[in-house]
Every structure is written in structure tokens, then in C-alpha cells.
């Protein structure tokens, strides 16, 4: 039987798949990004739908409840995303600075 919080998780996962598809269609996501996100959200939906399947993993990790597992997994996942975004922003900032500098040097007025 699917409880309320599971239903919320499943709907959230479906919504995120829809957004991933939308961004892919707009070409904001590459095919590789799209596939990775689809896999992430499908795994999320599966984990929310069948939490008892996670028992083996939870026992190995010493985690007591499914809620605790989701909280830990969520924090780990978000930390990864934050790091990834940080590196992307730094890279973009460097590229922007380089472009701004080159244009300034090229179009300088004497």
C-alpha cells in the first residue's frame, strides 16, 4: 500500500522527469544530461515506491528507517549537486572574465 509521503515522492519524481524532458526539448540539456537525470528520477521513484527493497542497503549502512535513508541520501545528493554547480559557476565566471578582458583590450580607445 502506498502511503501519503510515498505518493508525494512519486508525483515529485514524475514532475521532475517532465521538467527534464521539457529542458531537453528546449535544448537546455544535452542528451547525456537528460539520460542521467531520467535515471536519477526513475531510481528515486522506485526507491520511494518500494522502500522495503532498500532494506539490504540500509542494513549494510546501519540505517534504521527508510525516512532516515532518504534524508541521508538527499543530503549526499544535494552536496554533490552543490559542488557540481560551484565548479560550473566558477568555470563560467572565468570564461566571462576572459571574454570581457579580451573585448576591452580589442576595443580600447586611444
Amino acid at each position, binding site marked *: 500500500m502506498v502511503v501519503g509521503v510515498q505518493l508525494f515522492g512519486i508525483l515529485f519524481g514524475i514532475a521532475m522527469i517532465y521538467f527534464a524532458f521539457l529542458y531537453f526539448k528546449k535544448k537546455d540539456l544535452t542528451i547525456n544530461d537528460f539520460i542521467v537525470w531520467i535515471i536519477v528520477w526513475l531510481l528515486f521513484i522506485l526507491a520511494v515506491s518500494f522502500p522495503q527493497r532498500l532494506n539490504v542497503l540500509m542494513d549494510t549502512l546501519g540505517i534504521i528507517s527508510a525516512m532516515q535513508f532518504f534524508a541521508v541520501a538527499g543530503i549526499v545528493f544535494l552536496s554533490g549537486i552543490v559542488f557540481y554547480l560551484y565548479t560550473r559557476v566558477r568555470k563560467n565566471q572565468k570564461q566571462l572574465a576572459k571574454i570581457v578582458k579580451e573585448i576591452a583590450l580589442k576595443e*580600447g580607445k586611444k
Partner: protein
Amino acid sequence: MNIAVIPAFNEGKTIKEVIEKTKKYMDKVIVVDDGSNDNTFDEARAADIRLKHLVNIGKGLALKTGFEAAINENADVILTIDSDLQHDPDEIPLFLEKIKDNDIVIGARSLNEKMPLIFRFGNSFIHYVFRFLFNLKIKDTQCGFRAFKAKAYPLIKWQALNYAVETEMLARAGKNNLKIAEIPIKTIYEDKYKGTTIIDGVKITLNMLKWRLFS
């Protein structure tokens, strides 16, 4: 050739006077407008070269753009001075004299009563952390009034895009054993302070740790 690099951001009121006074002592003056929203670029007409960043990035990039332009103009000595009249251009000859025997000359502002208390505290804090990490006794690591031998640029070329640039230059100079001298300068705090903020100070301190450990 002695070239002055003046980074500027929204300094339309003062930039003209800084350029005119600086020109008395330097062969060329380069102004880098770091994406100002006011008339800074137009007011900088008296400069020999005017460069404009399309968007505001920070003092670090403005100085980098200015240094590269100065080197393209075959500079031997590059002098940096703030565009808000915080520094007195009449002190430039002191820098030009001192740079003859050094790679970098830094202006040292006295931590007098006119300097806002918060900045006196911030400067002292950065000074002690810098001294601890790099073993360099520099009184004022944040002063933007400096002279450099152009040949030192490849050794101090910085990554910082913001106010951390002042400290990063010195950290790199220290690591490359460049000869650094300090001269006392007067500083005028007439306007609202626009320089290093508390957040900048925290970032500079964290960056110093990064440069010490990883650079």
C-alpha cells in the same frame, strides 16, 4: 616607459582629476572602466588609453586588463592608483624613485583616526594573517597605490577577480622572492568607503589560506 593603470567603477566625479594629476608624473595613463553605470568612461577622456569592461567584474580583472594593455605599450614600470582620489598623485615620484631598486613598491597607509575603525581593524587582521602565512612584514596589504617593474608581472599574475587581488599579488611576489618595499603615504577618507568590505575581508582571509596551501 612609466605607465599608470587606473581601475575605475562609478567614479565619474573624481576620475578626471586623478588622470590629470597622474599624467604630470607618468608617460601614459590607462583607465580601465569596470562596467560603470555612470559617466566614468566619458570623464576619462584625458587618459591616453581608455578600456571598457562590458559588465562589472571586479578590481582584479580591471587591473589584469590594465597590466596587459600596459605591457602591450612596452611599459617598464606600471603604477596603480585608485580612481576615487583616496591617494595623492603628487606622491607618485616617491614610488618611481623607490621602484628603481625594487620589484614592487607598496604604499602603506597609516592606520590613523581618519580611517574608519572597522577598516583599521580589518586591515590589521589581514596584516597579521598575511604575516603568519607568508612570513612577509607588510604593513598594508590592501593599499591599491603601488608600483611594479613590468617584468615582475608574469611572476605575480593573479587569479582573483575582486579585491583579493591586492593580497594575491603579494602572496605570489613573496613566493617568488621578489623584492618588495613599502613607503608611507597619506590617505584621504572623504567619501563613503567603497573599497574592501567585511565580506571581502573574510574572502581574502580564506583565499590567503588557499594560496598558502595550494598555489
